[in-house]
């Protein structure tokens, strides 16, 4: 039993934090968000330089062979700084499919490029009306010569505008399958998300695709990768919650009304305490999610833990974000304060990859 990061994990987390503190302060981030593409190639290159792209991939492809726990410290730092670069889309989603389901040739073709920061990816899966149901896909794939042609429309594809290669889910005669599709064959309608990331709706019309993994065997892989990404955003949420709690506490200690700091008001003190308790409980579940992802004995055990974690994270994202704004009063409502951006990211994390209700249903089904 041990809840510390090991030395490597700690060193990496520290260096990411140092880098973000230096080059990714609130003002620097604001400029990046306002830039044309909404993310910074320089930051991206730096993250790759630090080894973050390769962290969860095999040394065979230039990576470090890490698991979800190895990424926790990084994601916490990303949550604190609210990193908008397509790290989750590429490392947490897109490339995970290649690593877990790809052929040796596919891995060789893609993973080293990802590790070096030269290739960005995105997972095009959600469709209109599928909500959080992972198995509901209308997109179709038809055999065309030695390859496939993919047709369908995907929505809210995280990192779509910057992706070089998409992992796309579509049905063949044998069922749900995955395909690699180049950006040239995808039509992306880009937008900024509430939490200032870039995403898009992506349509494919007879787009040439290369099958990834077994035909008709996509669902378990999708579940696995989504669980992985969910564990990552749980850790990211913990980083963002920590900032929200710390900055609110700081505000209570400095903001004066009626001649005293507002932190002397007992009603606010008790609510601040409840925020911190929420944070600790959420952190515990983020630990569970990451470590169970790495160590679970079977898919059911894994999925159950991830859903349990996401229930708590979703509930506590709401609690902490709402209280952080309320206790800040008007100032917390303004775009000028970092905490309002943290509020937006926490709000989105609560729903991303399934809201509390989705995971309550999944948890019950798995019990």
């Amino acid at each position, binding site marked *: 039993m041990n809840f510390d990061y090991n030395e490597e994990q700690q060193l990496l987390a520290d260096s990411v934090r140092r880098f973000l503190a230096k080059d990714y302060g609130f003002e620097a981030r604001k400029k990046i968000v306002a830039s044309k593409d909404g993310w910074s190639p320089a930051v991206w290159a730096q993250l790759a330089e630090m080894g973050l792209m390769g962290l969860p991939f095999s040394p065979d492809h230039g990576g470090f062979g890490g698991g979800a726990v190895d990424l926790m410290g990084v994601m916490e730092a990303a949550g604190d700084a609210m990193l908008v670069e397509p790290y989750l889309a590429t490392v947490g989603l897109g490339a995970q499919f290649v690593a877990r389901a790809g052929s040796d040739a596919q891995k060789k073709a893609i993973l080293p490029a990802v590790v070096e920061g030269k290739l960005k990816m995105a997972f095009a899966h959600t469709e209109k009306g599928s*909500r959080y149901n992972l198995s509901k896909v209308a997109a179709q794939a038809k055999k065309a010569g030695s390859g496939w042609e993919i047709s369908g429309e995907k929505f809210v594809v995280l990192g779509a505008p910057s992706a070089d290669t998409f992992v796309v889910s579509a049905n063949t005669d044998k069922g749900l399958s995955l395909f690699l599709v180049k950006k040239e064959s995808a039509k992306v309608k880009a937008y900024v998300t*509430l939490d200032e990331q*870039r995403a898009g709706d992506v349509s494919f019309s007879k787009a040439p695709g290369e099958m990834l993994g077994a035909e008709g065997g996509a669902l378990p892989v999708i579940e696995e990768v989504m669980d992985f990404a969910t564990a990552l955003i749980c850790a990211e949420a913990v980083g963002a919650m920590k900032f929200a709690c710390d900055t609110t506490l700081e505000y209570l200690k400095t903001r004066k009304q009626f*001649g005293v700091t507002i932190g002397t008001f007992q009603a606010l003190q008790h609510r601040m305490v409840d925020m911190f308790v929420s944070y600790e409980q959420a952190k515990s579940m983020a630990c569970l999610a990451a470590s169970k992802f790495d160590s679970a004995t079977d898919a059911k055990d894994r999925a159950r833990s991830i859903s349990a974690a996401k229930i708590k994270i979703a509930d506590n994202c709401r609690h902490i974000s709402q209280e952080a704004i309320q206790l800040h009063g008007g100032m917390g409502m303004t775009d000028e304060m970092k905490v309002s951006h943290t509020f*937006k990211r926490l709000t989105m994390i609560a*729903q991303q990859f399934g*809201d509390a209700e989705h995971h309550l249903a999944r948890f019950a089904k798995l019990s």
Partner: protein
Amino acid sequence: MDLNYSQDESAFRDEVRGWIKQNLPQDLREKIANYDELGREDLLRWHKILAKKGWVAPAWPKDFGGNDWNVVQRYIFEEECGFAGTPPLIPFGLSMCGPVILRFGTPEQKKRFLPGIYNGDVFWCQGYSEPGSGSDLASLKTKAERQGDHYVVNGQKIWTTLGHIADWIFCLVRTDSTLSKRQEGISFLLIDMKTPGITVRPLILMDGGHEVNEVFFDNVKVPAENLIFEEGKGWTVAKYLLGHERMNTGRIGASKRELAKLKEFAAKQTGDDGKPLIEDSRFRDKLTRVEVELMALEITNLRFLDQMRRSGQPPGADVSMLKIKGTEIQQALTELSMQAVGPMAQPFKSVANDPDFDEFTAGLAPRYCNFRKTTIYAGSNEIQRNIISKMTLGL
């Protein structure tokens, strides 16, 4: 006990409802329904339509354009506007500055300011809060020094709603800093926003909207005749204003409209199981609990009105309860709307102004963000609890 309106009241409601249906311009109706931002012209257009009808300031004396509606009629009118989805009547002139001038103004001030307020020719905003004075209003520092026939104002106001489109601002300023009681030495001043030395800086909210501002005063010369009531008696004026009767604190009509809309579009959303989301008990029960809370609040509000009508007393701390519950309900509705669309809540703004971009759905999460303000503004819900604790419970 009869929870229903009397025949007369029902007739009045039907009249109001029918008139709004006839007179609310379709484009304004749609802007509201789509949660579009309303500009100065949109707001004043509806204001003027009501002014022409004589319904814009029911509580004013008849001589100044008011009418004899009792509290129930005023409530009905406001709730019908809310339920129909009319543009809001901006309160700063009509229900704040106007009543103050009516109560404390000189005949000249009344003649000068009231028609513009009534007719919607002059757009007012409020200069109360300051960076250091939020809940603790009496600590305000903006200074007004008497120099001959004018005051020279220096200082800063914050959270000035619509200050960027306003013509005039009414301010609480400190005219005497030497007094030990902070509530003394405060005066109530009317200031033309075009006066040299005034700078308005937008405060963008987290949803990207521009509603509120900081207003800076740098040696702003204000004619002494713009002082309302006596110098140093501004706190009396402010207290009168705060106690001024408001009927629609709970915003029940608007919440009923939002609830109906949410139900309608939740029926069109697909749940994880492929059925309409509204049939999913997990979503439905959250919705039901808000619906029930709103039913309760409507009756609570009517109970208070009934009491007011009978006692002739203005509402007390009851208004605080309506504020607390009303804003909690508004927030719950915006949150459920955002949750109803699931993953589609993420998109915020199209990069290339894509005409297909679903602006309505994309507006739901920002609206949720924006509505966090409701439990903060107009006396935060914590302050409302303090008021009930002190005034109603005697703690």
